[in-house]
């Protein structure tokens, strides 16, 4: 084991941009064992370990990195999975640059340790070489229902299963994974990785019931009253797309990013063996500046569009997408039309999208979010010639559960109101992830699932174990 004094991260091999812009294979190829050991050598193993506090699920980062440096990859895997049930996913899609890596001491002078890449290596190495599934723990006789098989539901289910709970996840789609399979594209997070992580949960004893839309086929109350679940965790995400409300939004060729990505990812429209159609576009405008907008733009390129333009109201500086994603999109040839706001979509006589009308913007005073507010520049109209417009300006929680669960408090944005431990206005009903926070990140949702699992455990123990009466 040797210290690596390099100020910069060990680069991770990636597919050549020109090549990858036309295929759906994974962009980042991951570290080899040698590269991982080299990068692990950059960790100072500092005592205060600020990185851990930056991790929403509290992975013991210096411990696992020390184990990687010592080439004890099996121990490193155990260390990570004690805190994180989806390491191969998180190693790929977590915004480490604002979390663990943002706090890394090595980042003060130079680049932080590439914690995310190391996490990914450990998970991939385990899957590819060992492949052993976790063993179920003895059942404690209590049953919990989890609604939604996305990041927060999977994380909550894993922690509960490890405590001996018998957990059933109810998923509306025909497959588990939530946004990991319908939203994040194959080239960033291969579906096989998600499948494998879910198979690990099933090995722990978690049951996954697909095609179950809770709020329709069964209500939360039925799960609690008729099906014998002692607690319910709601992790139904924020899946309802927001539209712009501008002229021409119903023309043929206007998609929500959710629809576009769901067709390509979940329904495999990019693979000709599958029946689901998707538009064959020549020139695409994607509206928005988040990760979802980058995913949609890069998907459009891979589906064969000759020109893809991101239209964003502010500048690169305010763009909410991860820097790495913006960088990858640029490399692949996505154009950026920043400081531009769409005003209307124009179609031809057959109702097909033909042009996107925009106005130039400039940045004014900071708004409530702290970002400088875009202000219209008068008479600055311009048009983009496009045949497809993808709207990626955000999502809000699905109303199905709040409309069918009496007494469940929600806020004016439609989010379920939950305390830090996930408890809601209804006893026995917990919630976390995007359905509580609005659209956020995979790892924050996973952190919420973890906290809720602990709270659900305490709740069920409190109900079933003999109480200490002296407290009353």
């Amino acid at each position, binding site marked *: 084991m040797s210290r690596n004094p390099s100020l910069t991260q060990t680069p991770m091999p990636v597919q050549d941009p020109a090549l990858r812009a036309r295929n759906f294979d994974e962009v980042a190829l991951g570290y080899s064992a040698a590269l991982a050991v080299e990068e692990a050598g950059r960790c100072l193993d500092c005592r205060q370990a600020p990185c851990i506090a930056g991790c929403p699920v509290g992975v013991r980062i210096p411990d696992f990195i020390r184990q990687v440096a010592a080439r004890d990859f099996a121990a490193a895997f155990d260390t990570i999975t004690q805190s994180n049930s989806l390491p191969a996913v998180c190693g790929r899609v977590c915004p480490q640059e604002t979390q663990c890596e943002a706090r890394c001491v090595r980042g003060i002078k130079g680049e932080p340790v590439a914690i995310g890449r190391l996490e990914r290596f450990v998970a991939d190495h385990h899957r590819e070489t060992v492949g052993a599934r976790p063993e179920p723990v003895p059942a404690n006789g209590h049953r919990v229902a989890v609604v939604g098989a996305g990041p927060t539901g999977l994380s909550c289910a894993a922690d509960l299963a490890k405590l001996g709970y018998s957990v059933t996840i109810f998923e509306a789609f025909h497959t588990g994974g939530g946004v990991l399979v319908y939203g994040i594209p194959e080239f960033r997070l291969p579906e096989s990785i998600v499948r494998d992580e879910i198979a690990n949960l099933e090995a722990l004893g978690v049951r996954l019931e697909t095609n179950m839309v809770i709020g329709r*086929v*069964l209500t939360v109350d039925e799960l609690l009253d008729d099906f014998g679940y002692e607690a319910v965790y709601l992790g139904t995400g924020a*899946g309802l797309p927001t539209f712009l409300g501008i002229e021409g939004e119903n023309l043929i060729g206007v998609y929500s990013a959710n629809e576009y990505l769901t067709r390509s990812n979940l329904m495999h429209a990019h693979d000709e063996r599958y029946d689901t*159609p998707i538009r064959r576009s020549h020139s695409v405008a994607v509206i928005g500046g988040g990760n979802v907008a980058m995913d949609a733009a890069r998907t459009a390129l891979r589906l064969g569009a000759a020109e893809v333009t991101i239209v964003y109201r502010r500048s690169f500086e305010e763009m909410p997408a991860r820097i790495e994603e913006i960088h990858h999109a640029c490399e692949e040839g996505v154009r950026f039309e920043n400081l531009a706001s769409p005003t209307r979509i124009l179609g031809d006589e*057959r109702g097909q999208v033909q042009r996107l009308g925009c106005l130039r913007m400039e940045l004014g005073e900071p708004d409530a979010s702290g970002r400088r507010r875009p202000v219209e520049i008068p008479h600055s109209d311009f048009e983009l010639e496009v045949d497809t417009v993808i709207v990626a300006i955000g999502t809000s929680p699905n109303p199905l559960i709040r409309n069918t669960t009496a007494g469940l408090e929600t806020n004016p944005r439609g989010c379920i109101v939950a305390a830090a431990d996930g408890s809601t206005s209804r006893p026995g009903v917990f919630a976390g992830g995007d359905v509580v926070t609005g659209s956020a990140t995979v790892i924050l949702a996973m952190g919420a699932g973890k906290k809720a699992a602990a709270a659900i455990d305490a709740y069920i123990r409190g109900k079933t174990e003999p109480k200490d009466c002296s407290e009353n």
Partner: protein
Amino acid sequence: MYQILSKRALNEQVTMMEIEAPLIAKKARPGQFIIFRVDEFGERVPLTVAATDPERGAVTIIFQAVGLATKKLQQLEAGDAILDFVGPLGRPSDLDGARRAVVIGGGVGNAIAYPSARYLHEHGAEVDVIAGFRSRDLVILEEELAAASTRLYITTDDGSYGEAGFVTDKLRALLDAGNQYDLAIAIGPVPMMKFVSRLTREYHLRTLVSLNPIMVDGTGMCGGCRVLVGGETRFACVDGPEFDGHQVDFDDLMLRNRSYLEQEQEDHTCRLQQAVQNHGGKA
């Protein structure tokens, strides 16, 4: 997997199937729909629930084989199974309080109108059904509709059965003859629903229509099924599929339903041939 319990051809193009799905059979109400996927490669396609048998755990669907998914489904037989069947989705029809209703069905839309007619009839309403078809050989559910109505009027465009003419002709005749209704339900091709709604508006008759836009998930996630109702964007899957016919922008719906038409026409022939070859043994 969801087993096909029975299969019956209602005419050359329309097939009725019972699918084993006990939870859905218990929950589905008139107006709600399911989404099916035949196999791993299939599309997710919505179909309105035509009937349920909670005792046997059966959900009846009636469909016309028009697209790839419905053609794949049609090739299966009782005893076969499909990969996915999810529901009930959408809001149930708002039928309560109606005392005298006229239910208008067009073509395979009669299959969707049938459960509403039956529900109204069973709940003591007087129900006139106008069932329109292009010609005699396309008539479906005649017995069922007769049993679910006070009076059944069948019309055919070519006059080969029942009364000659469109459903709107018959509806206007009934209204002009002084029939007073408190609810109209119109389900069928979009132009039919458009013209029925235009007619009933003259008579200030509350009219429900069931919309069939393109859909992927059916739970409010994709927004592909957005329709303009009263000038506002609504999602047919969670806000509908039934809406006030006097508020719906039918032209917008017709436009959006053509989204993949040209592309499909290019692809379809070869893909269909392939699908038929793959399932050839069963067909």
